C-alpha cells in the first residue's frame, strides 16, 4: 500500500514537469480542431494512453535487455532524435493538412474517430501517435520512476508502479480541457495550426541535434540516476 501512495505522490510531484514537457505538443494540437468538452476529454485520455504506451514500451525493452538503469547516452540520443523527427513530421502534417469536415453520403461507412485529415485516406490516429512519440522522449521524471520501479524486481510490479506514477502525473493534464471552451474563438484553429507549424521546425531541430550527438557521443554508460532523481525530488 505504501508503494501505491509513494508512486502516486511521486507522480503528482512530477506532474508540472510532465505538463511543461508535453504542453508544446498537446495544447496546439487540441486547439487546432476544437471540440466539445467530452470529446476533448476522450482525446486527452487517448493522448495520455499513447504516452503511457511509449513509456511502458521503453521500460519493457530495457527490462527485457536486463538493464537496471536506462539506456546509455548514445542510444538514448538516437531514440530521442528519431522521436523528435516523428513529432516534427506529425505536427507539421497536422498543421498543413487539417481534418476536413464534410457531410457523409448515406451509404458511407462511419469515419474513424480521431483521425487527422479526410476519412477516405488512411491517417494515423493522431492522439495516440502524438502521445506515443512524446512518451518515447522519456520525460526525466519517468526515467527516475522507471529506475525506482525496476527496484521492485518483478515486471508486473514495475509496470504497476510505473502506471500509478503515470496516474499521479495525469492529474495535472486536466486543465488542458480548458481549450475546449475556447473554440468559440474562430481564430483558435488557425493560431493553433500556425503554432504547430512553428513547433514542428523546433522539434526537427531537436531531432537533428540529438542524432548529431548520437554520432559524436562516446557511448559511455549514462548514470542518470543522481541528477534526474534529484530533479524529481526538487521539482
Amino acid at each position: 500500500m505504501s508503494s501505491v501512495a509513494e508512486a502516486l505522490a511521486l507522480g503528482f510531484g512530477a506532474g508540472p514537469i510532465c505538463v511543461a514537457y508535453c504542453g508544446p505538443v498537446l495544447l496546439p494540437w487540441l486547439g487546432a480542431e476544437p471540440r466539445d468538452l467530452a470529446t476533448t476529454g476522450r482525446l486527452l485520455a487517448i493522448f495520455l494512453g499513447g504516452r503511457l504506451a511509449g513509456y511502458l514500451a521503453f521500460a519493457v525493452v530495457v527490462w527485457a535487455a536486463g538493464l537496471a538503469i536506462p539506456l546509455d547516452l548514445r542510444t538514448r540520443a538516437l531514440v530521442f532524435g528519431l522521436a523528435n523527427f516523428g513529432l516534427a513530421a506529425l505536427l507539421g502534417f497536422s498543421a498543413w493538412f487539417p481534418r476536413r469536415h464534410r457531410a457523409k453520403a448515406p451509404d458511407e461507412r462511419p469515419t474513424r474517430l480521431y483521425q487527422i485529415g479526410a476519412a477516405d485516406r488512411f491517417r494515423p490516429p493522431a492522439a495516440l501517435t502524438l502521445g506515443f512519440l512524446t512518451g518515447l522522449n522519456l520525460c526525466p521524471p519517468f526515467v527516475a520512476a522507471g529506475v525506482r520501479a525496476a527496484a521492485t524486481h518483478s515486471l508486473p510490479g514495475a509496470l504497476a508502479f510505473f502506471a500509478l506514477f503515470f496516474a499521479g502525473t495525469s492529474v495535472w493534464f486536466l486543465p488542458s480541457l480548458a481549450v475546449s471552451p475556447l473554440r468559440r474563438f474562430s481564430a483558435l484553429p488557425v493560431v493553433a495550426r500556425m503554432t504547430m507549424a512553428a513547433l514542428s521546425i523546433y522539434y526537427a531541430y531537436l531531432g537533428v541535434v540529438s542524432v548529431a550527438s548520437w554520432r559524436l557521443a562516446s557511448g559511455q554508460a549514462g548514470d542518470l540516476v543522481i541528477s534526474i532523481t534529484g530533479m524529481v525530488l526538487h521539482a
Partner: protein
Amino acid sequence: MPDRARSIALAPPRGIGRSLLLTVPVALFTLLLFTPVLRQPGRPAKLAALIAWIFMMVLFFLMMRTRETYRWRRIFFITLGFLFPVGFIWDLIALRSSMSIPMERMISGDTPFCFMVLPMTLIPAALKKTIIFPGSILPTPSNPHSIAMMVALWLLATIILGKAWCSYGCFFGGLDEGFSSIAKKARLRKINPKWRLAPWAILVAIVLLSAATFEPTYCMWLCPFKAVTEFPQVRSTQTALQFGIFIALFLGLVVVLPFLTKRRTQCAFFCPFGAFQSIFSRTSIFDIRIDKEKCGAGCLLCQNNCPTLAIDQEAIRAGKTLSSCMRCGACVDVCRKNAAVWHIKGTPVGVKPERARLLYLYAAWTFASMFGGSIIASSLQKLIGLVF
C-alpha cells in the same frame, strides 16, 4: 502610406494661439518629468535634453494645429526607432568594443532586461519562482535596466496606453514604421488577413517552449532586433545559426517587407509582444470607433491605410477596430466622412471626438516624452558629444 485624402483638411487648422494654449499643459507635464534629464552635467547632455523636449513639443503643437495625429506621431516614432540603436550600440562599443554579449556578462547578471521577455517568464516564475533571464532583479551600477524597472515601466505603459505602447513606446517599432514609409506606393498589396494571427501563434509557441526549456526562446532564436542591439557571442554552430536567423528576420520583416507592403509587417505579422499587449487592448479607456451611419457604403480607406490591418469589413460592421489596433491614428486622419473617430469608453460615439483625442494625446504624449524623449535625448547627447 499610400496616397490618401485628408479628411482633417475639411476642418480648418486650429489657430496658432489656441494650439499653443493646448500645448501648454503637455509642455508643463513633460518639463516636470524632463527636469532630471535637463539637470545632467555637461553641455552635450543639457543641449540634447533641450533639443529632445523642443522636438516633442513642436510635434504636439503641430498635432494640435493640423488636427492630425498619425503624421506627427510617426515622425517621433521613427526618430525613436532609429536613434535608440545608435545610443545602445554606442554604449556597447564604449563598454566592451563589441555588440555581442559575453558569457561573463550573462552569468554576472549584467544583461539589460527587455520587455519582449515578459510573456516567456510568467510560467517558469509561477512554477519555480525564478526569472529565466540573465539580468538582475533590482538596478545595479553595472545594470540600471533591471527586471523590476522594466516590468514597472511596462505596467505603467499598459495602464496609460494599453496596446498603444506599439505606437508610442516600443523603441523597435519605429524601425519597422520607418522602412514602411520610404516607398510612395506599395509593391505588394495583397496580404492574406490570416497572417494577422501569426503573432499569436509565435506567442503561444514561445511561451510553451520557454516553459519546457526554461530559456527565453524568442531571445534565443527569433528576435529580429538582436541585429541592432546585442546578441550572444558567436562561438559555436548553434550561436552562428541563431545570429543568421536574427539577421534574416531583421532584413526580411523589418526592412524588405515593410518597404514592399508599406505596412508594419514585423509588428503586425510576427511580434509576439504585440499579441501579448493585445490582451490589454480593452483595458485602456481610449479607443477608436467607427460610426456606421456616417461610414455608409464604405470606401475602405481606413482598411487600406491601416499599418497593421487592424480594420477590416467585419470591424467596420462592428463599429470598432480589432484588438490589434495600435491607436496610431492613421484611420481617423484618412477618413473622409469623420466616421472613424477617437473615443472615450462610456461616452457617445462621435460626440466631441476631438476632446477624446486631446485627452488621449495628453496621456500618450506625456508618456512618450518621458520615455521615448529621454531615449532620444540620450542618443543625441552622444552624437552632440562628437561635435563638442
